[in-house]
């Protein structure tokens, strides 16, 4: 397989804090790769190490197999879409997109700019200033500005965080399809597991500067290696050491089969596509089951039986 970016034992220690600790992962060319983790876990730092804004304390970063540790940001063929987009307020959309091309002394600026603006569906807005654009449009300008340089890897730091929630879902779809179309490798930082799951081919889960697990969405969600990964990617019921996800926790009025637990419903909350049923077992433990709306709900106080398919147990 064709690796475009490789990190080997990369660390970044600030005087006050160890932001990143010996993390290693590899990104395949053309992949949509997500760095997922809670706030403060070192995602941005990792991204900045790749972009060259920070110097690694230890370890090696290589692009297309060549080490780039020594290169300055403007010598690395990677580009960044910043969390706040960092569009140049004094330049028009065109000015922003041209900026990088001019640095390269590229030819046929006009054409390249036109094409990339078409790509992100911003044609016609070339002469607007960033202040005159909506959040979604700004994000697209930021993308265009970087994509037009055809980087080996495009780094995105929470590109959706700045958008209003209603817009976010829509842009998410656009981002995915855009990546498919241009085929550029995306290295993408987020702390929203739903975002990571829905967008990426590969997810690297970070915690406290350490890499916990790398794998496909199914891997990290269904076969988490650590309790942290299991918990961070979705709710889990821990029943005597065994982890079961709410949607895998079956609930029925009649006890069928032997390995099932009896409990009473405490509350049932309507979430639209499903009910979140909170039950309490004999031993007082609280177990949450997610019941598809169509299977109907349960009334508080109802005695119920909980069971699950062993295949759905999370084995760490």
């Amino acid at each position, binding site marked *: 397989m064709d690796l475009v970016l490789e990190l080997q034992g990369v660390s970044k220690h600030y005087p006050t804090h160890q932001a990143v600790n010996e993390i290693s992962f590899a990104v395949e060319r053309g992949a949509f790769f997500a760095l997922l983790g809670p706030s403060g876990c070192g995602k941005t730092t990792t991204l900045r190490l790749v972009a060259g804004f920070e110097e690694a304390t230890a370890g090696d970063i290589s692009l297309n197999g060549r080490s780039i540790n020594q290169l300055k940001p403007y010598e690395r063929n990677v580009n960044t879409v910043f969390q706040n987009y*960092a569009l140049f*307020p004094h330049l028009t959309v065109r000015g922003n997109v041209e*900026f990088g091309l001019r640095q390269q002394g590229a030819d046929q600026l006009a054409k390249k700019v036109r094409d990339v603006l078409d790509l992100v569906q911003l044609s016609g807005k070339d002469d607007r200033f960033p202040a005159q654009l909506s959040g979604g449009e700004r994000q697209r300008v930021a993308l265009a500005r970087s994509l037009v340089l055809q980087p080996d890897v495009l780094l995105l730091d929470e590109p959706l965080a700045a958008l209003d929630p209603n817009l976010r879902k829509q842009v998410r779809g656009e981002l995915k399809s855009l990546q498919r179309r241009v085929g550029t490798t995306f290295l993408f930082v987020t702390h929203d597991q739903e975002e990571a799951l829905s967008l990426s081919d590969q997810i690297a889960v970070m915690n406290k500067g350490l890499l916990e697990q790398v794998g496909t969405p199914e891997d990290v969600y269904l076969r988490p290696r650590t309790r942290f990964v299991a918990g961070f990617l979705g709710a889990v019921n821990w029943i005597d050491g065994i982890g079961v996800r709410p949607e895998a926790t079956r609930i029925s009025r009649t006890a069928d089969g032997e390995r099932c637990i009896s409990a009473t419903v405490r509350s049932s909350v309507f979430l639209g596509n499903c009910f979140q049923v909170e039950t309490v077992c004999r031993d007082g433990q609280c177990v949450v089951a997610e019941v598809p709306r169509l299977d109907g709900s349960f009334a508080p106080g109802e005695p119920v039986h909980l069971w699950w398919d062993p295949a759905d147990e999370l084995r760490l």
Partner: protein
Amino acid sequence: MKRGLGLYAVAAYAFLHLPLLVLAVFSFNSSRFTIWQGWSLAWYRAALQDGQLGEAAWNSLLIAVASTVLSTVVGTLCAYGLWKRDSKLLSGSLYLSLVTPEIVTGISLLVFFQWIFRFLHVQLGMHTVILAHIAFSLSYVVIVVMARLRTFDASLEEAALDLGATEWQAFRRVTLPVLAPGIAAAALLAFTTSFDDYVITSMVAGVDSETLPMVVYAMARRGANPVLNAISTLIVAVLGSLIVLSERLRES
């Protein structure tokens, strides 16, 4: 409450503007004294014909422009450098000079010039005045530009680097343009403080560097003088319109 505030504001603005207004009105008075005797442009004629005044005004202008240009350039670079990483000594002495009483600054510069002139024989003159003005307007410039930098998003520069610009190009093509309004404001401040300064100038001025404030002071010392009203009015008018103009430019 709202109305009370409004009334107060009217009073406050009267307090701020009446003195100069009165000055302006009486600059058109045909009498020397504060008794109104009808309109006349005599004092303006006198002011404009006074060679010494003209020369002083010209000097003030030269000095203000020169010191403004220099202190703005140096100050902007300095603010940027400090913003990158603070230098206790430099920022400390900048703050200190900002709060040094004018008289002390002036005296210390006078003493300094005398002292070095013992060794290299230079005369007091435009150059010394300009140096002095740079010395005290530098801190204003740094402070104002710095205030602007505090709201400057560092990731803009990183974005420029990321897009292939070198540090210098990033500064030149992104940071400077974004800071422009702040720099303009700083320059304006430097210009007016320089154009206005008497205390320090009077200490380091030489033969050929008498400035407008110095002449004004001498005149004020000689007592009421309608020519002074005329000059004052002219200065207010000219500077005022200058400010308004620059504001317009900034807005557009």
